[in-house]
Structure formats: structure tokens, C-alpha cells
């Protein structure tokens, strides 16, 4: 296969990347703003897909499918929130429990079908791999709307309270903010956005699979970190909140571009998760190693040695 197939597939690649970027925006809320490692997203991404597929199969519009997926995700986030704040379960464990429970719940939603096809021939879908350019425009507009809402919301009094909760809970309490409520609410909106992305992803690929959320958290983190590294390199001190959000989505596109290239190079699809893990590890390690090499003991010793000589 020549490079033409890769280029011809580019709008589709970008669209899928933006869908992952939207998911990463949701993960950004918990991971970056709330400082909460929420692993429930692997489950809620698939929940979004499952709910959307069932709504569409029942003959209702894709609009309702997206709304109900959003609500289902919000409920999933609420469960993690309750497990953590009311029942005192540590953040990672609370997320894992929800994720595990959602696997069964997702199968119930799809009436025990591990894979629910929603063909664009039979149903009217929001986005489809068949119409790549349309899909690209649609998801791009949606991503921009979500970024705009997030930018506004986290600048409001409520949004500031959520951000404060993430950076310093003790101070936040002293300012009269209910820290547990803020954490739970952050989880709710985060998982709602993730499920919304799951609903888009299922329609784009023409099916909702019970395993579609596997590795969602890592892909989300990959997008966030890739975006952050590039944004820091390009804008340095000029970086602000809206740029950060834009680059989260850009990170998603870039991530999926890597995947597309690797697939195009005929690497076995089963190795994809391994490949993703390696990408994330590299992007996590590079900033750390760079800062370490800037302030290393060996270099300090060398400098000191020269001065003394």
C-alpha cells in the first residue's frame, strides 16, 4: 500500500483523534484539575457507546443518543464520587471498582451482546467513518463547543472552587467550600464528557463494543501529555487555559496519527496497546529526563571541577 492510502484516510484519522481528544478533555478535569486518578473512564467510555447504540437501534435520533450517553456517564461518575467521598475508598480503587462494575452494566445495556452494530445504512448517525470529511467537521465543532464551555465554566465561581479543591483541599475547606461535593461533581462532568465521546466513537466506527473502553484512560493521558509537551515547547510562558485545552484535543489527533501510521506500516493490530503504553511512557519520561539533565549532579561536579582547576 502506498502513502496515498494513509493520506486518503487522514480526515478519518483526524476525526477519530478528535473524538479521543474530547474524551481526553473529560479526563483532563479529573487528572489535571481535581488531581484525581479516575480509572472509571475505561468503563464509562464503553457505557456511552452502549447507551448510544441502544437508543439508535430503538429508532430514536442520534441527538437523544448523545444526550442519554452524557447522562449515563454522569451517573457512572457519581458512583465513583460516592464510593470515594461517602464511603472513603481511595481514588484509584474507587475508579477501578466502578470500571469493573460498568463492564457488567454495559453488557446489560446492550442486552448481553458484546458487540452491537449500528450501520450507517440503517440508521441516521451523528458521525460515520463512511463520510469522513463530514464527520471531521462535526467532531471539530463539538470539540470547540466543549472547549468553550469548559473554558467558561472553570472561570466561574463554581469552577474555581473545583480547581481549588484539586490544588489544596485544606485551604478550600477553610474558604467554606464542600470539598467532597466538588470532587463528586468534577467526577460527574468528567465521566459525562467521556461517555459522550464514547457515543461519538461508537457511531463513527459503526458499532458499540463492550471492550471499546479498554485503555481509554491511557489514551486520554497520552493526549493530555502529548498536548502539554507540545504546548509548552511552542508557547512556553504564554501558555494559558484555552491553549492547554486546545492542545489536549491536538494531542488526541497526534496520538491517533501515530496509531494510523503504525497500522499503515502493517504492524499487527494486537500490538497496539503495547505501542500506546510505550508512547505514553516516552512522553511522560521526556520532560522528567530533560529537567534532570539540566540539573544533574554529574554536571554540577564537572562544573565545580573546572572552576577549581
Amino acid at each position: 500500500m502506498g502513502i496515498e492510502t494513509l493520506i486518503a484516510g487522514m480526515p478519518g484519522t483526524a476525526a477519530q483523534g478528535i473524538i479521543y481528544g474530547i474524551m481526553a478533555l473529560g479526563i483532563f478535569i479529573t487528572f489535571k484539575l481535581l488531581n484525581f486518578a479516575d480509572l472509571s473512564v475505561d468503563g464509562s467510555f464503553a457505557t456511552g457507546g452502549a447507551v448510544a447504540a441502544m437508543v439508535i437501534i430503538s429508532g430514536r435520533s442520534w441527538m437523544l443518543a448523545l444526550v442519554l450517553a452524557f447522562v449515563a456517564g454522569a451517573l457512572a461518575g457519581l458512583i465513583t464520587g460516592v464510593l470515594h467521598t461517602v464511603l472513603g475508598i481511595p481514588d484509584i480503587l474507587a475508579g477501578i471498582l466502578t470500571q469493573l462494575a460498568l463492564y457488567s452494566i454495559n453488557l446489560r445495556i446492550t442486552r448481553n451482546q458484546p458487540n452491537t452494530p449500528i450501520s450507517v445504512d440503517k440508521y441516521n448517525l451523528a458521525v460515520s467513518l463512511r463520510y469522513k470529511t463530514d464527520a471531521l467537521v462535526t467532531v471539530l465543532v463539538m470539540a470547540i463547543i466543549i472547549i468553550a464551555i469548559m473554558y467558561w465554566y472553570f472561570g466561574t465561581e463554581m469552577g474555581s472552587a473545583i480547581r481549588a479543591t484539586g490544588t489544596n483541599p485544606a485551604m478550600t475547606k477553610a474558604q467554606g467550600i464542600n470539598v467532597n461535593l466538588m470532587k463528586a461533581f468534577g467526577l460527574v462532568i468528567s465521566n459525562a464528557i467521556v461517555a459522550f465521546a464514547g457515543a461519538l466513537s461508537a457511531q463513527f466506527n459503526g458499532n458499540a463494543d463492550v471492550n471499546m473502553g479498554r485503555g481509554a484512560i491511557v489514551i486520554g493521558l497520552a493526549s493530555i501529555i502529548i498536548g502539554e509537551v507540545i504546548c509548552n515547547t511552542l508557547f512556553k510562558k504564554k501558555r494559558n487555559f484555552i491553549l492547554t485545552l486546545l492542545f489536549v484535543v491536538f494531542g488526541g489527533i497526534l496520538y491517533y496519527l501515530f496509531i494510523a501510521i503504525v497500522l499503515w506500516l502493517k504492524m499487527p493490530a494486537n500490538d497496539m496497546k503495547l505501542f500506546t503504553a510505550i508512547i505514553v511512557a516516552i512522553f511522560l519520561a521526556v520532560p522528567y529526563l530533560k529537567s534532570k539533565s539540566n540539573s544533574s549532579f554529574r554536571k554540577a561536579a564537572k562544573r565545580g571541577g573546572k572552576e577549581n582547576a
Partner: protein
Amino acid sequence: MLNANNLRKTFNAGTINEKVALAGATLNLEEGEFCTVIGGNGAGKSTFLNAVAGVWPVDGGSITIDGVDVTGLPEHKRAQYLGRVFQDPMTGTAANMQIDENMALAARRGKLRGLRWGVTKSEREKYHEMLKELDLGLEDRLTAKVGLLSGGQRQALTLLMATIQKPKVLLLDEHTAALDPKTASKVLEITDMLIKEHNLTAMMVTHNMRDAINYGNRLIMMNEGRVILNISGEEKKHLTIEDLLHKFEEVSGTEFTNDTEILSK
């Protein structure tokens, strides 16, 4: 303004680590009283402040602030009546947020937080003026992240945040202990200025006897979870460190070892 009556608190009750931190501590502060709190390590000074702030529920006793019984209110609900500054400069502010955002968070203490802007333009102008009064050069760094500030700057900012809306009671928990002597005295000056300017009711825990004597119009000494010494009015004005040491021996029945580690002159 503040009535803390017979407060009791035991940590790790029934275990080998059982520690009676408050054993019937009582304190009544009138409006405008600035009370310094001294006592050795483990005397219950910080515990007393935490009890008032509602970090955890007390085992016994009651706390009333300006006529409102707050004994049953959790920390975030009690916060509307209180301004707090902590020993660790990292505790009082959100490091990842801007100076103006931190101040705006404090300005909305006890108010319903809705979907209005977190910081408005008119607020920024007001904060600019307030920071200018501190004379720490912070007024031109409104949008800088608080994490970039020094410990002293952060404590001064926390003080400003604690008093941005007049608290019923200002709680200062050794808020200068982590600062170098020069910065500590600057922060103390700011503290005194703010308390006088707004006629605040305040409690200040300190390990420094001289500061405890020089500042405020009331002084209490704590020992083993109780208030053992209570000095106010004229007596407070003429108090010396020698008096204080003498009084401690009288009241506690033990000889004061003058341990500079515990209570520095």
C-alpha cells in the same frame, strides 16, 4: 464574640496512642479582643484552634460564635465565620492558582458559588489596592501563580484573604513560625495592622513570649489541654516575661524550666 466552653478532645481513644489534647478548655472573647495563646509543645494550643475551626468534632463542650452555636457544623460550613492562617505557608493558599483567583475564592467564603465569573474586573482593581498596602510588590503580580511566592509573601496573602471579608474570629496558628525573623516581624506587623484596621476578634498561637506580650490585648497560657492563665486589660499591658514565668510556676505548681526550645524569649 467567641465562647468556647469546656472543650474536650481525646485522640486515638482506647488505644496505646491515646492522647488527651483538650481537657476542658474554656475561653470567652469579646468583640475586638486580640488574644495571644502560649504554652509548651502538646499543651493543646493548635488543637484548641482546630476545635474552633471545626477540623473534627469535639468530644465535649460547646462553641458559640457571635451567638450562633457552631458545635455541630462541619469545617466548610463554619468557615463563613472564620478567617484562618496556618503555620505552613503552603496550607493557606492554592499554589496552582493566580493571586487574584485565590483572593476571589476567599472573598466568596460562606457565599453561594454560582456561575458568575470567579474574578471580576472591579475585584481585580480592589485587590490591586489591597496588595499595594502590604508593600510587598505583589500588586503588579495579580495573575502570577501563588506557588511562585516566598513563604512570607504567601503568609501575608493568606492574612489578606482571611480578612478580605470581615471574619467573626481570626485564627492564627503559629503563622510566623516557619518564617525567618525579619519576615516574621513584617508579617506580624501586617497582622496587627489588619486586626486594628478592621477591629477583629483574633486568636494567635505563638511560641515567642515577647510577641505574645507585645501584641494583642489579651493573653492566655495553656497547659495539658486547659487554659491555665488568663491575662487582660492593664495587667496585660504591663506584663513582662519574668512575670509570665513566675505566674506559670504559681498556676501550674511546677517550676518553669525556661526551656528556650519550648518558649523562646
